[in-house]
């Protein structure tokens, strides 16, 4: 099951500079585990030690922010596009 994943500049050191990579998984959690096998360290930039999504990133499945879809448990389907963006926020 191929899912296209769009990688922001700040994380491209984990993907050999690639803007777009492919992975597979039934959930976002599975996808990130799959990606980490080929792009070591990527998962650690997105998932905290406690196992939640990092607040410094926005992750979207197609047009939806996964925070509103079930976070790491978000279900994925063949052909979905996952977009990762650094959160823009501050004080």
């Amino acid at each position, binding site marked *: 099951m191929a899912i296209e994943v769009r990688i*922001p*500049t*700040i994380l491209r050191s984990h993907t050999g500079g690639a803007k777009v990579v492919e992975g597979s998984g039934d959930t976002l959690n599975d996808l990130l585990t799959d990606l980490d096998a080929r792009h070591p360290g990527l998962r650690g930039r997105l998932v905290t030690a406690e196992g939640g999504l990092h607040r*410094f*990133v*926005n992750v*979207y499945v197609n*047009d939806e*922010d996964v*925070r509103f879809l079930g976070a790491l448990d978000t279900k994925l389907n063949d052909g979905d596009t996952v*977009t990762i*963006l*650094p*959160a*823009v*926020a*501050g*004080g």
Partner: protein
Amino acid sequence: MSDVLSIGRSIIEAIVEHARRDHPDEACGVVAGPAGSDRPTRLIPMQNAARSMTFYEFDSKEYLRVWREMDDRDEEPVVIYHSHTATEAYPSRTDISFAGWPQAHYLLVSTRDPQRAEIRSFRIVDGEVTEEPVRLLESDSVEATVDPHAVQSYMFGQSPASVDYECPAAS
């Protein structure tokens, strides 16, 4: 990566206007430009989803839409700006921890003084903050006569018709 922000005066004026409009809440937005050019050309004021006087956050849906539009046009966020409404135009600890666009100029506007807005620009890479000069471009070809090696902050008056700015001596 250049160590100066060169930006059109009209864009800066529009950013100050946006910050004034949203005051006392923080305002935020992007100035996009052709990827790799380091030229901020297209101002995109964004909503502050936090609607707060002490915090800002891009609305996640709007951000995705704007990012896709930039990507389609082969642009990137050259400047990411936000305002501080009660404190100086210097990145806060939260600003530093969130800064996720290492190639962007982080522009801060302080609107704490109702008469004069303060503008300063920073690079924030791996948690390290470096202030850089802001060079105002009067048009695409003419540049303001500003020492490019000095770090300046600009004080903008409220009336866009008669902009009052001064460059304090570099420290």
